[in-house]
């Protein structure tokens, strides 16, 4: 069995665009620009990027909806171009905000229909449907028509549809869009449980919610303008951020701070005075260095009002790499 769930090499996908005022030359738009990525089996992998960065195109190539323009992509060791049918035996997909489904069917009927497409026998399929509906909190609505569901309920139903065939590799494209806080939390908790219950399972998640990626993903890649610009564990990515971890210490007014840089382990110190207090921002080689600063302040008979450790978030990593916050990047992104 191949140990890589997903493997891409120099993956390129361009779209031919008609000539228009915004694209007078009619030049093709590059959605994926040489993406090389390995995702091992069992990993919960996140893909972050602004709108138009290539996230959805990447997923569509992997789930066999789109052919790559060049390069190669393998899912479960199978070529997405030449072995599309075999790939489909092993995958499932849930897209956020999708309106799929037949309005006249009930939730249970809609899900049963999809179970038949995967060849599941009716009785165990219905049992699994009920089990999953209970997990996402939709069991009470099982006999309700799809047309009468709210956006959040539809999204929960789609999540159940994605999990129904128990795929080896689950593609989640913004799966919690439109869900309320509680439902999104339930869904996150369940997919975390789902992936850990079986080592063959892999998830590729795209999301706009940084905290979601931080909470769920073993590794995260940031995609920008069709290229993977960073890929590591969330912790490692945070560490790579310029500035890294720092402390903010508020104390009684200080005459000067030149001495602070002399404390062993302190790499950089900045200060500003607000409300008659001095706020020190300290970058240290390791957390232990902060003890030296505290002792030095005590020696100078300066009271300490607060001490806070600040760690960079994935948002900070994103800002540093892409140059903008995710929301700002979206506004400037291709629709």
């Amino acid at each position, binding site marked *: 069995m191949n140990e890589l769930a997903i493997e891409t090499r120099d993956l390129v996908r361009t*779209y031919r665009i008609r000539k228009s005022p915004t694209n007078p030359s009619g030049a093709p738009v590059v959605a994926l620009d040489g993406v090389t990525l390995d995702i091992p089996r069992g990993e919960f992998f996140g893909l972050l990027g602004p709108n138009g960065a290539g996230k959805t195109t990447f997923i569509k190539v992997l789930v066999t*909806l789109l052919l790559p323009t060049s390069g190669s992509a393998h899912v479960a060791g199978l070529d997405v171009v030449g072995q599309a049918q075999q790939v489909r035996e092993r995958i499932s997909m849930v897209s956020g905000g999708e309106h799929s489904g037949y309005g*006249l069917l009930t939730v249970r009927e809609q899900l049963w*229909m999809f179970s038949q*497409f995967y*060849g599941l026998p009716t009785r165990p399929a219905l049992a*699994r449907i009920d089990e999953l509906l209970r997990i996402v909190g939709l069991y009470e609505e099982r006999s309700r028509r799809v047309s009468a569901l709210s956006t959040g309920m539809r999204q929960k139903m789609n999540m159940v549809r994605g999990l129904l065939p*128990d795929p080896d590799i689950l593609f989640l494209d913004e799966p919690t869009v439109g869900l309320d806080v509680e439902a999104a939390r339930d869904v996150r908790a369940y997919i975390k449980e789902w992936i850990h219950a079986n080592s063959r399972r892999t998830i590729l998640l795209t999301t706009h919610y940084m905290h979601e990626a931080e909470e769920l993903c073993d590794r995260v890649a940031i995609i920008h303008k069709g290229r993977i610009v960073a890929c590591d564990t969330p912790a490692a990515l945070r560490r790579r951020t310029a500035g890294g971890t720092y402390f903010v210490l508020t104390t009684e007014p200080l005459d000067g701070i030149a001495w602070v840089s002399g404390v062993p382990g302190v790499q950089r110190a900045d200060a500003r005075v607000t409300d008659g207090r001095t706020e020190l921002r300290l970058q240290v080689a390791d957390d232990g260095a902060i003890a030296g600063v505290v002792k030095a302040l005590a020696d100078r008979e300066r009271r300490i009002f607060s001490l806070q450790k600040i760690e960079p978030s994935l948002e900070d990593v994103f800002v540093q790499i892409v140059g903008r916050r995710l929301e700002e990047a979206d506004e400037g992104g291709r629709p």
Partner: protein
Amino acid sequence: MSEIARARGLRRVVRATLGRAYPRIIGANRERSWLFYDTVLPLLGTIAFVYVYKALGAPDRFVGYVIMGGATMAFWMNVMWNMAAQFYWDKQGGNLELYMVLPCGIVPILLGMSIGGFVGTLVRAAAIIVIGSVLFHVTYAITQLPLFLLIFAVGIIALYGLGVTFASVFLMWGREAWHMAELFMEPVFLASGFYFPVRALGFWVGMGTSIIPLTLALDAMRQLLFPGSHPALLPVRAELGALVGLAVMFMLVARWSLRKMEYLARREGRLSLRF
């Protein structure tokens, strides 16, 4: 979550086909208004054409022609709107991309759509024939029932094969699909002789329009319903032979075009792009 063994091969095809047919069949029961519209609309059109013949002082058998045309129209509309244009609606609704990544493939989906659509339409067509015949006192004398049913069955297979071909073509046409389905209404009613014997178009024109399976199916069934008085295009058995040929051809063309269009759609990225 416990493991469930998946059916493969033919068993999965059967399951998937029945799964996709389910909404079509259940829809007819659940949405009574659909039943009303799908029966009453062709019936109203049919009655209008009955009155045209009455205004022209035509013999009674022409009323029978029109009622048969109305029943056939129900099948044509089902094929155009619920087969050929269905992928367009599915694309709009987001179902198509889910279908395209199914392990069972797209063929059982189309098969299910066909069977579900056929069952519902058969009921509607029967309703049109019964209501129309009662309203206008039309009687039929089928001379060879097994042959009549055989012609009907082969004609339906050829027709739904054409529907699958159109489905793949419409898939690429995107938003033009439903306009194209509309385009294939009156011109096809004319070319296939829904309301008059197709022979009236002239022999060679009639032969040309026989590429639409309903042309020969209608002509052959009318020959059996109105023996002696119907001006035939070809003898019944020759029309049956041609219909078998069309059925085989459309099934092969449908298979080829579906593969071709699926490949093109994946290459062009038009499976899920909305306009």
